[in-house]
Structures are given as C-alpha cells and as structure tokens.
C-alpha cells in the first residue's frame, strides 16, 4: 500500500532527516519527495511504500504525527488513493 505523508509548518533544520529516520526505522521505503518553502512556511510531501514496513498506515501515521508535534509541525499520513481519485478521471 502507498501513502502520502504531508509535512507542514515553520521551516527549521533537520525536518527531512528526522522524518526519514523514522520511516527507515520502520522499514518504509520512500518513493518520491517534493518540497517547497513559501514565506518560511515549509511544505513537504512524500510518497511512501508501506508494503515492506512493519506498521500499518494508521499506526505509522500516529507516530509521524507525534514526531511532528515535537518539532512544531503538522504531519499527516493518508492513503494515496484519495488523491488519485480526486484529481484523475
């Protein structure tokens, strides 16, 4: 199963490193990363593959959310299907 991780909040050092470390610790493969910084507001989206991972999307989502809170960021994990369906005919 694939999911989209969205990280938003004030830009600071080490955001990607921390998120990627958590994903690697859970054997989750990152397929793609895209990021922008607008007016010091950091936005990153990642496409991840959970098929090799140890946790399901809800469990992983909760861990990422908790990690986000420690850095003052909002991290959301959602199954990819929702975006596929909403924007493609």
């Amino acid at each position, binding site marked *: 199963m694939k999911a*989209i991780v*969205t990280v*938003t909040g004030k830009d600071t050092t080490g955001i990607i490193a921390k998120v990627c470390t958590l994903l690697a610790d859970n054997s989750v493969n990152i*397929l*793609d990363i*895209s990021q*922008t910084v607008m007016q010091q507001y950091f*936005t990153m*989206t990642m*496409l991840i593959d959970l098929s090799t991972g140890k946790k399901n*999307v*809800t469990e992983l*989502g909760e861990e990422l959310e908790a990690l986000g809170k420690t850095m003052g960021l909002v991290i*959301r*994990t*959602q*199954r*990819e*299907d*929702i*975006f*596929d*369906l*909403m*924007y493609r*005919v």
Partner: protein
Amino acid sequence: MQNINDIISTLDMIDHQHLDVRTITMGISLLDCCDEDIHKVADKIYDKITKKAEKLVETGEQIEKEFGIPIVNKRISVTPISIIGSACRETNYAPLAVALDKAAKQCGVNFIGGFSALVHKGFTNGDLNLIHSIPEALASTDEVCSSVCVASTKAGINMDAVALMGKIIKQTADMTAKDGGFGCAKLVVFANAVEDNPFMAGAFHGVGEPECVINVGVSGPGVVHHALKSCKGQPFDVVAETIKKTAFKITRMGQLVAREASSRLGVPFGIVDLSLAPTPAKGDSVARILEEMGLEVCGTHGTTAALALLNDAVKKGGVMASNHVGGLSGAFIPVSEDEGMIAAAKTGALHLDKLEAMTCVCSVGLDMIAVPGDTPASTLSAIIADEAAIGVVNTKTTAVRIIPAVGKKVGDMLEFGGLLGSAPIMPVHEFSSEAFVARGGRIPAPMHSLKN
C-alpha cells in the same frame, strides 16, 4: 507522484473549507423481524441491528484515519416500521421505536431512520398505527427519526394523510415542548420519498433494497463556495463549470469511502448521494454560495435561479464521479442548519414563500423551518399539501420538516444546537386553510403526457 498543489489543495479543503463525508448510512431490512407479539419484534429488531451494524462505527473511524477524511456521521436506516408492526396485535408502535433507539445507542450511531410509513395512496392498519404512535415514539427516544410519505407522482396526494400529519406534527411539538419541539426536527413528511436516502431525518430502507446496504452522503458547501470566489464577475457558464469540477472531487471522495466501507463490512454498496448539506458552522453554508453568485442576501430575487444552477451543476459534476448515484442528490436548504439561511431569515429577506419557490429546484423541500407555536394544524397541513404538489407535479422528491415552536412567536429564536442549529421563527399566512384541509380524499395524480 501526485502534484504537490493538489495534495495541499485537498488538505486545505479538509482544514478550512469543511470538506467531509457527511454520513455513512447502513440500510438494514427488518422484514424478518415480524411477529404477533410486539415485545418479540422489539427483541428481534434490537438483535438484528446490533449484529449487522456492530462494526459500522469502528469501520468508519478506521477509514477516517487511513484516508484523513472526516466522516461526520455513521447512521442506520431500516425498513419502514409500519410494515414490520403490521403483524402485531398491539396498535401502539412506540415500543418498536424504543428498541430502535436502544440498538442505535448500542452501535454508537447518532441517528436511526425508518419509523416510517408510506401512505401516498392510502393507509394500511399498520400505517395508521404507526402514524398515531409518532408523537410518543419521538418524545420517548433520542435518536429515532420518522418519516411519512403522503404523495407520489403516480398516486397523487393523500389529503387524509396530509390532514393527519398536520395534527401529528402539532402533537409531537407539544410532547417535546421542553426540548423546543425537538421531536419535529426528527419528523419529515415526504412526497416521492426515495428508498435509498442516507440523510436524516428522512432515511428509511425501502422494500426494493437488498438485505443490507451501505449508502454514503457527501457534502461540501464550503468547498464550492471557496471555488466560486475565484470566478468573481465571470459569466454563469464559468460558475457552472467550476461547481461541476468541485462536485466531482467531493463525490470521488464519497465514492472511495463507500467502496472501502462496503468491502470492509462485507455489505453491498448502494449509492452515493450527491448532496451539498450545510451545517451551522461558518463557511459551510449553501446560502453563502448563492450570495457568492451575486445576490446581496439569500432570498432576494434571483435566488431560485441561482439555486437551480447550483443544484444542477452539483449533480452533473457528481454523477461521473460515482458508479451509482441516488438518494436525494442536490442542494439542501435546511434553514436552521445553514448559517447563511439563518442570517437571511433574521433580516427578513428569506421567507416561507420564497423557500417554497426554492424547493421547486433544489433537492428536497421546506426543511428545518420554525413557525409560531400557535400555527393551526390545518395551516401546517396546507403547507405540506403545497409542498407535496410541487413534488408530485415536477416528479421530484419534496419534503416538509417544520417545527411549531411552542410558546414562541415571530422574531424569536429556536435553539437546537449541534448540527441542527438554530432557527428564527418565520411568519406563516394568517388566513385559514381549514375548510380546504378538511375535505380529505385524494388529489389525483397529474397528467404526464400532453406536456406542451
């Protein structure tokens, strides 16, 4: 990967524009619960519902978490209880409503619909028993919703039922007067009722439906409103196109939720209801969409045309996004549940006659309207008759959910709180319809040829 802007746009819709799936409604047939002994029926109803819908709420919550989509309500609809109760010796069906209420609470849903009767052509004994039990049933339960279909395009308008429902609404208001007549907020009088509607208070599981089914109702007035802000001053072609595209996205989400819920619960998927269902929250209003089209206040001249465009564009955009569309599908205009409608009614720009005109082009009818507590039953019946006539002649569903606010007069406010919001008491015509309603009988079905 997905376009980052699309992802951000979806999150923005959820965070700031009230995008959500309004309801997952499980329809359950109770036809196998009939018995002569009403207590046995009540037990069978409780057992069947709690077994079938045991995992409904849990599954809804799982889907919410995995996809990051809020699913506001999980609900249940059942076979019209007038049919189930027909076999009972007992004539008061209120104990069956209590069983439904208990089952709904056990399952963790917030409403259960189906304390209903379909009497568009005439009453069975069971129908009459049910209708007379409505005030007690609604006063003695919290989550049970009731509906009565009094008219259809094929059968005409059952004016005896129309007359009776005026009285039943008054009785229900009196019996729930301490809660502001809350019972009436759970009672809908329909013309051309649909069997697969997932929205309350009018949901019931029709006899043409399978044993168990999942229907989903989407929402998203806030998202449509936000999208229209980007086409200020543009012609209506652009407005319609923008609404269609937005409705497509909203409905796709509903379709996804419906498919997931259906497969996880092992219950067939029925329909997605493409509706714009407002809430009293700021930024989640259908009235504000109409105002965004250029009306100073909802209810002024042009409102019906604006609503017609909105209603049609929502269906056109949504229909391609789902493989089965049904229910009521369109824009809802419940006064108390829509922040913009409440404001418009308070200023006096929106009145009952204009709302009636709006119901010719929207998905349902006179919805969540509070009128003075001393409104005679015959006037309520006449309002129902007018609304039923619109539905019957135009081959569409119409409904009346009206609350005679006991002890209140025009200009007062009726507060329900939560999703049901608050309603300013609106004036009704003072002139009598008594003799009209007293005639009874049936208004014949309209001609549907010679359309010129």
